[in-house]
């Protein structure tokens, strides 16, 4: 009796969802990601182009979407086989809330994290770069530090200016707390009129970022991965000690 019902149900389902089933099969066929892929104990977040948040940007923009990054960060925290995270940054900035959310998540990850800025890590890319346990910048990479603006909108009431001030404050506080730069220095760079010809702010190149205390070290892929391996080893050591103590 129950077998018959099952059969009937199955038939119905096949008829109704034939197309959907083929799709599922095909996705499943494709989705066996663990077959050939070697397990890596280091995962890598690539943050490129515009950081896209609550508003989808027109398709001509190359974007990194927070709905892709956030589940990846959670998966990295939960998967026991993953021991460290490398954050690669080449971004022109983007959504403030999304950028700060990503920065907060990276900084609160229990596993070792290393960030490497290549090309550029501008605007909201700055808090993300400093959110990792240790940060590197490539010799030729730059970071543009400038004030938050509401372009295209007239600031008509003092409240909206206040709102921008508060956003500015959140970014500054995060950067100061997660790097060795002082608040005064960061603000000085942000409001400098001497560096950029058409705008307020400073373009900080490679070594300068280290001198200001914004980034920990100048380096590339080998240095970043080397540091991450070192942090992973240290963490393993601590865990062993903890186990022995218990």
């Amino acid at each position: 009796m129950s077998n018959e019902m099952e059969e009937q149900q199955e038939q119905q389902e096949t008829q109704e969802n034939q197309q959907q089933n083929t799709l599922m099969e095909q996705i499943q066929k494709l989705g066996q990601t663990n077959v050939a892929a070697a397990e890596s104990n280091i995962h890598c977040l690539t943050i490129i182009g515009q950081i896209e948040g609550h508003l989808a940007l027109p398709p001509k923009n190359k974007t990194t979407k927070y709905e892709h990054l956030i589940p990846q960060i959670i998966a990295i925290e939960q998967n026991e086989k993953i021991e460290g995270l490398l954050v690669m940054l080449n971004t022109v900035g983007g959504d403030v809330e999304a950028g700060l959310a990503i920065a907060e998540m990276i900084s609160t990850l229990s596993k070792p994290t290393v960030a490497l800025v290549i090309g550029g890590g501008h605007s909201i890319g700055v808090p993300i770069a400093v959110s990792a346990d240790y940060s590197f910048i490539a010799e030729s990479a730059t970071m543009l530090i400038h004030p938050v603006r509401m372009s295209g909108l007239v600031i008509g009431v003092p409240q909206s200016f206040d709102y921008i001030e508060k956003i500015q404050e959140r970014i500054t506080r995060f950067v100061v707390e997660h790097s060795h730069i002082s608040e005064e220095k960061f603000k000085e760079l942000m409001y400098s009129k001497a560096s950029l010809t058409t705008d307020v702010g400073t373009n900080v190149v490679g070594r300068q970022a280290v001198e200001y205390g914004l980034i920990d070290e100048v380096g590339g892929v080998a240095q970043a991965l080397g540091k991450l391996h070192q942090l992973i080893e240290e963490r393993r050591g601590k865990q062993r000690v903890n186990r022995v103590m218990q």
Partner: protein
Amino acid sequence: MVLYTLIPMEQIFGEEEVEDEKKKKRRTIDIGGAFLEVAQVNEEEYEIVRLISSNPSHFLDARFQPGKKIGLKPFWH
């Protein structure tokens, strides 16, 4: 929403170029542990445009290389 970027707003939200017919048919699919951005090339086939994954070994996997065609019946048809 506030954007904090060095790209001018006009450039971000400005006029789209015409070639975007192809971009409209793009979809992001979840393949379990990673995302694939695919673009429709014809009724039956999709082309991989971008792989979004934090696992570096995914990028060495021949099945996920950008430009590779995959058969995928769109479920919205």
